[in-house]
């Protein structure tokens, strides 16, 4: 009996030892567990803040807006050095929903506003330097006047550094461009951009290219498939 009890105690002690070893290993960041943790952290950085909402039914305009912002297939992120670039496809329904901001809107009113966005494929580009804690134009300034130069570049000239490339290698210039200036309120900058959809409509893939002259990171490309862009919830209306 004494022998059995001692054996059980031995097993319990061994098990406890094992668990404590496991815990230490995952915390010190050197072990496989630790590395996996780093791996996961890195993956989290590349993914998006919220899990996408899965709609089993049609979405209201406000739900639609929330969905687009978090849907993984409509968002792509790329990190080069310290700089994180994110692109989000904005369907015309998003543009209209975001403008109306009313779930009780009548479908006829919604459609008429949605139609004003026809002819252009819209995207949002977000550029951020995580941890910098300041607006893009202020990061690593070499001289005071450089801030104004950067603001000018971000406000106007960056439009010329954006294009969309179709399956047949046609290059489409950016025709809609708006730099959303936040005056240091946000640690990132966002740009609403748009390309004429005449050629894009028939292209199975489109590659949106930003030639980043601000951080000298060169050509930043995002390849998106039309099938994925069209995969959005159906809108529902009260009236």
């Amino acid at each position, binding site marked *: 009996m004494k022998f059995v009890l001692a054996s059980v105690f031995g097993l319990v002690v061994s098990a406890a030892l094992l668990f404590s070893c496991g815990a230490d290993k995952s915390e010190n960041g050197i072990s496989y567990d630790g*590395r996996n943790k780093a791996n996961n952290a890195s993956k989290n950085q590349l993914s998006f803040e919220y899990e996408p909402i899965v709609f089993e039914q049609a979405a209201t305009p406000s739900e639609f807006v929330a969905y687009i912002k978090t849907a993984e297939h409509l968002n792509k992120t790329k990190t080069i050095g310290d700089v994180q670039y994110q692109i989000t496809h904005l369907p015309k329904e998003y543009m209209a929903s975001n403008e109306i901001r009313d779930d009780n809107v009548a479908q006829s009113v919604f459609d008429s506003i949605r139609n004003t966005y026809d002819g252009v494929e819209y995207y949002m580009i977000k550029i951020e330097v995580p941890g910098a804690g300041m607006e893009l134009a202020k990061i690593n300034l070499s001289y005071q006047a450089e801030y104004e130069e950067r603001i000018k570049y971000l406000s106007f000239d960056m439009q010329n550094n954006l294009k969309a490339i179709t399956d047949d290698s046609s290059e489409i210039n950016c025709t809609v461009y708006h730099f959303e200036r936040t005056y240091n309120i946000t640690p990132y900058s966002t740009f609403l951009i748009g390309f004429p959809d005449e050629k894009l409509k028939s292209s199975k893939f489109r590659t949106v290219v930003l030639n980043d002259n601000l951080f000298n990171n*060169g050509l930043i490309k995002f390849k998106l498939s039309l099938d994925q862009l069209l995969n959005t919830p159906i809108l529902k209306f009260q009236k």
Partner: protein
Amino acid sequence: MLLWVVVLGVGALSLINFFSSEPEQQKIGYVDIDRLFEGFDMKNELQGKLELELKTKEIILDSIVYKLSLAKTKAEAPDATDELKWNFQQQQNYFFQEKRGFEEFSMNRTQEYDQQILKQMTQYVADYGLENNFKVILGKNSGGNVLYGDVGNDVTDDALEAINAKYQGI
């Protein structure tokens, strides 16, 4: 005594079992940097772009050289006036100025593109290493950072495919 042997034995066996059941081995690999650089889509795209930019500037420079040779012929003629000689001098200065500008442009652009390529290549190799469970990826080049590497550890082809996919934004 026997009791302690059993207790320690069970503990030891459990520890051996724990260490032998690690989920996945961390890998060490190396890449041939020259081959990676040569095969990187961004390098080839920017090389083409640079060649085009330089060619455009060369055409402008050629036309200046042509005008300069005409001015020289006129300036060296026996009946050349001071105005023609002065004109040649001016054009020659202009040519040297443009040539210097061309050389500076070529050097600066090459440096700029090299920096961009290196930044993105480094980032994508790091992404590849992280995603594929590498402990270390070494760079093999003519400088001799890796003096010997087993062929099995050469991940250049895999890494090249991965970095090109990343660059293309897939």
